[in-house]
């Protein structure tokens, strides 16, 4: 009995059990659909894993990591906002703005790499943050709901970049920018060689560094303490002498900065130029990634890995097992759905545990 209590109340354990349970269920549903439509799930899934480079091909595994890189950051961006009481649907727009500025710098300036690359990356962070500053300000000063303002900012970013690319850094086609100078690229020979030929790049490390920093801020610093307090209960935060408005704006900006960095990793590492008329989907996937990762930086790494390998393995699944890759999104969606439903199990478990323990404690 006591063992059981210990087990179910161990937050750590739950955080592991539940997402993995939902992943399992998701794949199960996928398998059922496949069999119903006359495919062989075993074949399909082994092909999926192979396509994602779990065995055999290193390049494929590199691509999995490549795909997950921007998702780590957008997921982190959304998660951070949530943890501080904000819902940032605008990661896509912030990513686009940050990415644009990075590409701009990558094209127009001529510096040695040690200056050029950091400069480009930093400015992506700064401008992602600035783009999020507006919704932050609107919320803090005018009580404008961040959900609307970030949605609007997405489209404003979309069109702003649309014009700026053509006006400032036109490429050989009117629909895309020129290519960044190699001194501003995140790609490195040694990584590509290591994963024979994948475009996997330094962005991955930037992402992991960001994860650590954000985790550290949230869990270890007074700054994080303050942000969370404001998120949970602004009145109490004000009572305690915290600057509520300033903190709302800051949280929003940090969230935006992360999305901006995602832009850098994507446009400086993955694409090396920027196309107009495309709102990167990573911002919206980031919502799912963040929530599936239970809003914890570490969790985000896992869930973005899931998204990453599913997406980079699905085409191979189709070509080799002949299972339409349209099914993979269905599976991902199902996983997210189950993880949602499972949160209830979790909260129920911990509730139970709590009162059990409290009972013990009060005696």
């Amino acid at each position, binding site marked *: 009995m006591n063992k059981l209590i210990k087990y179910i109340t161990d937050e750590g354990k739950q955080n592991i059990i539940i997402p993995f349970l939902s992943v399992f269920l998701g794949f199960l549903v996928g398998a059922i659909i496949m069999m119903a439509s*006359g495919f*062989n799930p075993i074949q399909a899934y082994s092909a999926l894993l192979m396509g994602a480079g779990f065995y055999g091909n290193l390049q*494929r595994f590199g*691509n999995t990591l490549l795909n997950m890189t921007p998702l780590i950051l957008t997921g982190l961006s959304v998660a951070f906002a949530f943890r501080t009481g904000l819902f940032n649907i605008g990661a896509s727009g912030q990513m686009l703005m940050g990415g644009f500025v990075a590409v701009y710098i990558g094209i127009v300036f001529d510096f040695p790499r040690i200056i050029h690359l950091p400069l480009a990356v930093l400015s992506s962070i700064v401008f992602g943050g600035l783009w999020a500053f507006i919704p932050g300000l609107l919320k803090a000063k005018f009580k404008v709901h961040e959900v609307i303002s970030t949605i609007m900012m997405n489209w404003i970013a979309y069109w702003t970049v649309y014009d700026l690319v053509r006006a400032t850094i036109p490429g050989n086609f009117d*629909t895309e920018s020129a290519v960044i100078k190699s001194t501003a690229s995140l790609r490195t020979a040694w990584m590509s060689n290591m994963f024979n030929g994948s475009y996997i790049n330094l962005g991955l490390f930037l992402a992991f560094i960001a994860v650590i920093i954000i985790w550290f801020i949230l869990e270890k610093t007074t700054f994080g303490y303050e942000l969370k307090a404001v998120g949970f209960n602004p009145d109490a935060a004000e009572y305690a002498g915290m600057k509520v408005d300033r903190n709302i704006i800051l949280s929003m900006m940090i969230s935006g900065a992360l999305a901006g960095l995602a832009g850098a990793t994507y446009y400086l590492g993955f694409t090396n130029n920027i196309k107009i008329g*495309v709102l990167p989907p990573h911002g919206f996937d980031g919502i799912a990634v963040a929530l599936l990762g239970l809003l914890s930086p570490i969790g985000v790494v896992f869930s973005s890995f899931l998204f990453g390998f599913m997406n980079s393995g699905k085409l191979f699944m189709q070509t*080799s*097992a002949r299972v339409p*890759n349209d099914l993979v999104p269905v599976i991902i969606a199902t996983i997210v759905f189950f993880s949602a439903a499972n949160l209830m199990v979790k909260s129920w478990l911990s509730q139970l545990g709590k009162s059990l323990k409290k009972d013990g404690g009060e005696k």
Partner: protein
Amino acid sequence: GCGTTNETGTGTDTDNGGSPVKVGLVTDSGTIDDKSFNEGTWTGIVQYEEEHPDAVEIDYLQPGGEEHAYYVSAINDLADTDYEIIVTPGFKFETAINEAAATHEDIKFILLDGYPHTGDFEFVSHENVVSVFFNEHEAAFLAGIAAALSTETGNVGFIGGMEIPPVQKFGWGFKAGVHYANENLGTDVNVDDNYVFQGTFTDVSAGQTIASGMYNRGVDIIFHAAGGVGVGVFNEAKQRATAGENVFVIGVDVDQYETGMMEDGRSVTLTSAVKRIDVAAYDYIDAIINGGFPGGEIVTLTLADNGVGIPEENPNLSSEIYQQIQEIRDLVIDGSVVVPASQEDLDAFIQ
């Protein structure tokens, strides 16, 4: 029941997958169902399979996005599962094909609307790649003439999506066509006041709004080269035609007569500036399998070889107009009329 039978079916397919040649398509921006460029290419491939069932085995992939890296990995997925022919529609594939062609020398590539290069636009010839271009502007030119001759209001319009090369060429050609008609066929038709690029290939409602605006100000024929935006254009035209108005749309890439179809069986499609992508795909697949593959070359398909043009049957286009167009077509073919393929040429042409 059906599950198991199909399953074994799939099994055998993959087992003796060696014997029929595997042909794969990697789609460009948009989906396989874009009723336009991707779908056109796919149609050609499907047709080839239907006519040579045991010669080929076909499939298509929609990459994760419109980026070099996505294209390369999609191609690798096909390569790693022994596809021997890969068709890629769109200039966006240029650098990806250049890379893939080098790594997979045993695979033949059919690159439509582009040629391999390293990003510097210096053509790199690969023995296993044929680069196919289309003189869209020539098709659009004829469409322009058709519009000029058919309009009753003396106003025609052009709605482009994003300003990518093929779309621009359609635009220039169309303008040139109208201008040519005004000069040589005694028409007096205005297109310049109704010549826009909406900016996306997706905003359906914008397409309808712009079309409606044009029709309201007296345009009666609109040429669209705008994907989803064109959907809105067709929709607006259908609504008006059903209500008895006399308005038309000129389709793009493929014969969009069907798309313009209304319930009474009529269609609002006056004609279409067709790019025989399907034919190209079909022909070069056949060339690869039965010999005669022009590897390493850049081929341009023109009016001359029916690579582009306007469809023959279309009740909306009177036969005499069609005849007139045919005559001009011949002039283009024998070179006595050169259709402008760039803004500069167009300006020159109009002088």
